[in-house]
């Protein structure tokens, strides 16, 4: 799970990040990710990620609102997002330091 989510712009990680500030349905997730990350998740990619994350217990589907079903981050999903974000932050800091972009 960790390796899969560790890849840059992995759809599952983008979905977890999108759900971190509240429940969202599919269309809201795609617009949120496009607005804040600049990545446009296609419908097939998004639902493949939602299915995987749901099966892993990292998100859960809420009761449908009409034909739209919101999804929520589970505690396990929040922990996974936190772990991956810390790892990426460490990698970013290390890279910028070695490139001399930021002082040690």
């Amino acid at each position, binding site marked *: 799970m960790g390796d899969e989510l560790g890849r840059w712009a992995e759809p599952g990680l983008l979905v977890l990040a999108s759900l971190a500030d509240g429940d969202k349905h*599919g*269309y809201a997730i795609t617009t949120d990710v496009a607005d804040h990350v600049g990545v446009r998740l*296609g419908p*097939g990619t*998004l*639902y493949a990620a939602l299915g995987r994350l749901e099966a892993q217990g990292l998100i859960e589907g809420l009761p*449908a609102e009409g034909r739209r079903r919101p999804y929520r981050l589970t505690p396990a999903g929040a922990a996974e997002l936190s772990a991956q974000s810390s790892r990426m932050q460490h990698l970013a800091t290390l890279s910028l330091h070695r490139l001399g972009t930021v002082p040690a």
Partner: protein
Amino acid sequence: MTGDPRVVRLLLACYPSGWRRRYGPEYGQLLCDLRVQRHPLLILDSLHGALRAQLAPGGLQMSARSPMTTAVWAVGLFTVAGIAFQKLSEDLTGAGGSTADALRAWLVAAAAVSMLALLVATAPTGVALLRGRDRRAWGYVAVPVVGAAAWFGVVRALRAVGQPGGVHSGANLAVVAVVVLAGVGVVAATAWAASAVLRRVPAEQPARLRPVALVVLAVGMGATAVLALAWGLSVRAGDPGVVSGDQGLVATPFVPSWVATVVLLAAAAALAAVAGRRQIGLAH
């Protein structure tokens, strides 16, 4: 709903039925919200997602088809292709020299291994059926017997009508079409009946039996397709006149019949590989 309902329905139909039951309404709404009919890349993304859902080993619960059902339909397709190969090759013995004859013999052996693997994979269900675990399932066993009898009846009736004329005459082609369609119908009915028996008869399955058997099935079918390809090349090299003549099915050119047969065999092998992959996923 703001999307084109026909496009949305078509894209939804590409997903497995179980997946549609779980995600269908919300996914359809997303496709509408995205106005997917105006964005070819989103259509491609949806088709890619559907393909992954169809092939995913973990997506077994999302599919109405069990691995054995897929395997049985692969064998049905393989049977049709095998009969086509037999008809194609029976008049060409010796045409490609000893190499072609040896390839044909190896092809028959690979096909036999595949059928043996299917027998092994279905053996526990057969034993359970013989032990009377589900007496009603015997009705399905009658399907291939009745189907074969009906097919022979069709052939005899057509023979009774008399010689329809030249090999390329419309009447003869119509007769051939009826015989072929009836045969394909019997194979399809048999595959349906076998799938039903495998689905409903409870049987104890040794853990590794089906995964190993389905892998052997797929490998054997793949080898058959490759050998059929090599056999055709060998025939062409041994007797170039065959390629330009009318040695194909129903006295048509050889190459289209040969290519179609190889493609059918390869499609059956691919279907068997999907079944094997799903069965391995289930075992894990």
